[in-house]
């Protein structure tokens, strides 16, 4: 079982969460808003400020995965994407994945508003 602490204030993260939720899984996942009371209650010793900056995944035994590692763990839990996770986590590909995910994470609010404005235009 994996606990995913995601940023509930960002539309991109909410989209990612609902996508993850719909995928067939090898490992069950629960989603908790990062920095929320529920998150603080579940993991009193965790640095919650950090979980608001980057995606955090916590394993059943309390293992904390952050940034690119958290994304790899999410993919690893999915039936259709475990192979992708294994390919992504090799020493050759992990640095690139880390850079891309860091960029997306830094610009997620801007990306979210971009997606939302495109979505609004598409709807009208």
């Amino acid at each position, binding site marked *: 079982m994996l*606990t995913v602490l995601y940023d509930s204030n960002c539309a991109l993260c909410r989209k990612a969460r609902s996508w993850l939720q719909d995928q067939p899984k*090898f490992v069950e996942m629960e989603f908790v808003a990062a920095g929320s009371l529920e998150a603080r*209650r*579940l*993991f*009193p*010793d*965790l640095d919650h400020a950090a979980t608001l900056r980057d995606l955090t995944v*916590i*394993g059943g*035994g*309390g*293992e*904390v*995965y*952050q940034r690119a*590692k958290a994304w*790899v*763990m999410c993919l*690893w839990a999915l039936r259709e994407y*475990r*192979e992708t*996770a*294994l390919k992504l*986590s090799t020493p050759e590909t*992990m640095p690139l994945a880390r850079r891309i995910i860091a960029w997306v994470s830094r610009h997620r609010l801007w990306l979210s508003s971009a997606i939302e404005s495109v979505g609004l235009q598409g709807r009208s």
Partner: protein
Amino acid sequence: MSVDFLVVTYCFYLVISISLTIWVARTLFRNGRVFLVDVFHGNAALADSVNRLLVVGFYLINLGYVSLALKLGYDVTSARGSIEALSQKVGVVLLVLGGMHFFNLYVFSRIRRRSVLEVAPPPVVPDACVARAR
């Protein structure tokens, strides 16, 4: 009495094609078992059953093709013509068998990859460890 070269060609075609099909199917059957036993986590009975079913499919498709491709469409009047027609027909059968064989290998490796993925441990090491309340 004149020899009907066409019928002789057909007979040779059938004997060669069917023997080749049996040979490839038996090779597949013998060597595919190891894969399947591994895939089904040592359940030999299930592996044997799936193996047999795969081989039956292999026989049906190949013998079906051999049967459909029998007709030559032109008359053969000499031994030379017979050998040429035969080599062309058997050549195509060999290519079809080869294609089917590789397709079977692909199916085996795909089944195996699935089962390997199912038990793959997390590919990254955790950054830290925390206690979970509850």
